[in-house]
Every structure is written in C-alpha cells, then in structure tokens.
C-alpha cells in the first residue's frame, strides 16, 4: 500500500484555468518525495488536493488507501500540512496557536501540553511563545507553522515550499526536523523550487511543468534522463532545465 497515490488526476479552477493534468504519482511509506516546478506549475494545487482542500476535477487521490474525496476527515487526522502561506491565527500568540491547533484535532490537554512545550523548545520558540504572531519575523512564523504540522503526530507531512524566503539557518533547522521525521518512519511530500533542497532531502523527485509530471525518479535517474553519465552534483538542475525547456 502506497502512502500517496494519484491516478490520472486533473484539476481545473472554476475560472477554467487547468492547473493539473494527467498527474499520476506513487509515494511509498517512509519516502521523501519532492515536487519541483516553476511558479505556476501547479505544485500548490497538487498539495491542496493531497491535503483534501481541493477535489480533483477528474482522477482520484488516495492517502493511506483512503480516497481524498470520500474520507477527508480520516485523512486529515493522519497528515500534517505546512501550506505555502502561513495560516497562523493573528488573534492568538504563538503558544496559543499551537494549543488550538491540537484542540481542533481533538487532542486531550495531557497529550498536547507537553508536546507544545517540546516543539517550542525544539524550534527555539520558547522566547516567542507569548508573542503575538503579528509581531513575528517570517522565519519565526514558518517555525510555528512547522511545529503545528508535527504536533498532531502525523504519518505523512505535506509541505508546500516550506523554506521559501527563509534564512539559511532556519532552512537547515527545518531540513533537520524533516530528516528526523523521516528517520522515524514518516513519509514526506514536499514541493519546492529550490533544486538544492530537492536534491538534498528527497529520495525521488517529480518535475512538474504546466500541470504535468514531465520527469520523475531518483537524483541519479534524473541525471541520467538529462544526459549526464553519473548522478553528479547538478544532475537535478540539468534535468530541470531539460524538463521546463524554454521556460527558464
């Protein structure tokens, strides 16, 4: 059973814009799968469909063998999502944001209280715990978003450009946390437009262009596809250039 499987998925916005077309992917348990693409390639639409926020116009998506259209609540119980844009509650402080995220998930206080403290400490947010989110830097907001995604004990992390615009130290911290999650058996689906991030974190990478996966495989596979003899540094970049062609 795959952690994520998408079968010939298309998504068309009500305006008629085709965001995703003929998308078929399979992410195995414990795998880190990266979706690479230019801005507007359809990455966020894919992420939103995986997170059950959008329904595929055609085709089907299954998370842990559950259909996203039929059993969204069960799926949401097993995933942690970091959307592209922060969705922190501006009426609450950082700690309250984490606490309410757990309460929305139906967690009991005795379960979430130590976890909130643990994640505040792990991400270096103790000093910001009572700060209004309106006064936080972009990096701190992103850390709080990451903490929310981990707090409910997900089996699958869905990350939409999690490190976009972040300082290198925050980016490294996030990579560490994702690595730790993966070592503990978690599955990760992430979208990014940073080639280095995809190359460093992902077991397999799909390159999305104009709503279609035009290349997919390990770093070595992609380097080979791009015509490089070995999986040398820059193989993903070469594959990316080949996949998106004149759009770069």
């Amino acid at each position, binding site marked *: 059973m795959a952690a994520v499987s998408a079968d010939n998925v298309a998504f068309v916005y009500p305006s008629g814009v085709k965001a995703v077309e003929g998308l078929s992917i399979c992410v195995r348990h414990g795998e880190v799968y990266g979706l690479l693409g230019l801005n507007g390639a359809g990455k966020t639409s894919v992420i939103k469909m995986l997170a059950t926020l959008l329904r595929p116009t055609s085709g089907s998506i299954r998370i842990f063998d559950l259909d996203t259209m039929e059993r969204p609540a069960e799926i*949401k119980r097993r995933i942690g999502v970091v959307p592209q844009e922060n969705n922190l509650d501006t009426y609450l402080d950082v700690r309250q944001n984490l606490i309410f995220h757990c309460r*929305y998930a139906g967690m009991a206080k005795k379960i979430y209280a130590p976890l909130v403290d643990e994640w505040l400490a792990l991400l270096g947010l103790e000093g910001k715990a009572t700060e209004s989110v309106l006064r936080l830097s972009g990096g701190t907001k992103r850390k709080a978003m990451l903490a929310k995604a981990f707090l409910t004990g997900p089996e699958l992390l869905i990350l939409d450009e999690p490190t976009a615009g972040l300082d290198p130290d925050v980016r490294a911290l996030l990579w560490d946390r994702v690595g730790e999650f993966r070592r503990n058996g978690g599955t990760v689906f992430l979208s990014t437009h940073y080639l280095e991030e995809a190359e460093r974190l992902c077991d397999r990478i799909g390159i999305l262009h104009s709503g279609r996966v035009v290349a997919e495989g390990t770093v070595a596979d992609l380097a080979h596809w791009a015509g490089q003899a070995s999986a040398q540094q820059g193989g993903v970049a070469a594959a990316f250039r080949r996949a998106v062609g004149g759009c770069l």
Partner: protein
Amino acid sequence: MKFMLALLRRAATADIAAARLTAVRMLVQPAVYLFVFGHVVGGMLPAQNGGYAGIMAPGIVAISLITGPFVTVGGGVISGYYFRTMEEWLLAPVSLRAILAALVFGGLCYGLIGGAVVAALVWAILGLAPQNAGYMALTATVGALLFSLFTLVVLLVPETPDKGQEVFSFLMMPMTFFGCTFYSYDMLGAPFSYLALMLPTTYIAEGLRAAYRPDSPHMEAGMVLAGLSLAAAVLVPLADWAFRRRFRDFTW
C-alpha cells in the same frame, strides 16, 4: 463537539486578549444606548403603554442578539479570509458540516451572551425585566441562530468575504432601523408595516417586546414564530449550501 468547543474557546481567548474592546462592544455601547434613549429620551416622551423605554429596550436586546453573531461568525470568516485561518480550520480532522456547525454555535453563544448582558443592563438602568422568560429565551435563541446563519450566507455567497462585507453594511442599517427595534410593529403604517414583515429583526424585536411587556401592543406569538420559522427554513439550507459551495474546494 470537541471542535465546536475549541472554536468557541478560541473566540473567547481572542476576546479576553482584547478585553477593553470587548467590554466597549458588549457593555458600554448598549449601556449608553439604554441610558440616552431609554432613560433620558424615554423620560421626556409622554408615557404610553409603559413608556418609550419599555418599547425600545427589547429592541436594544434584539440588536445585541444580532451583532454578537455578526462579530463572532463574521469576524471568524473575515479573518479566515485575510489571515487564512479558515484554512487552519478546514485542515482540522472534522467534516465541513462540523466546521459550519461550530461557527454557527459560536455565533449563537455570543448572541445569547450579548443578549443576556443587555437584558441585565435593561434591568439595572431602566428597571425592566422580562415577564415571560421562556418566550424570551426561545426568541433570543432562534434570533441569534438566524443571524449566525445570515452572516454566513451574506459573507460566503459572494466570491470573497470582502465583497460580502459591503452587502452586509448595506443590509444591516435597514434591518436595524426598519426592523422594529426602536419602535413597535403596531406603530407602523403601510407601506412600512409590509416592509417590516420581510425583516427577521421585526420578529425578534416583537417577540422580545411580548416577553417583556405582554400587556402592551405587540405582534401575536403565532406570527412571531411563523416569521422566525420561515426565516430558519430559508437560512438553514442556504447557509449549508453557501458554506459547502465555498469550502468544498478551498480557493481563497
């Protein structure tokens, strides 16, 4: 149920953090209204059927019953749009209908709390207490529920809630002033009496008026209940449709 209580608690936490603003909205504003229009102006007007204070005080309770849901439900939807907190709620492991129910429940609770606070102010400032507590509780509950649903419909039928806000501003003024809040229905002549029948505020205010002063002129209970039931019959499916249509595919 857990999600419902969590969302209600979130609204309370946000209100406690903005305690001064909450106090002004829930306590000071209605107190000023009641003092000026009930105590001062009411004292100047010739006493008729228990005086003007007895006519307008239930109307002020009605206004608090409808502004509570507007602030809670409307505030939730609008901040959900601008700050994307709606996405946070949509990612909670509950159904869409559970999120809808939680928002409506929050509006209902806030409407009832606001109504109870103003009812206490009415008693403290004007010395008026409801004569029929059961009828008042029923009218207040249905009224707050209707305006929770109404707020959702107005904000979610347009593509984005900022457009709904404009519609809301356009509707709230006539709802308040033509909906028998500052005068009783029997004081209206045609065509205003017909216009007032189309506004749910009329039935809420008249129901409360009947609960406060059963001996003074007011709309018949059957008419009040029919009006509220009709509004509910329209708003319950409409709010459900608007909510599911807007959030089955989250494109904000």
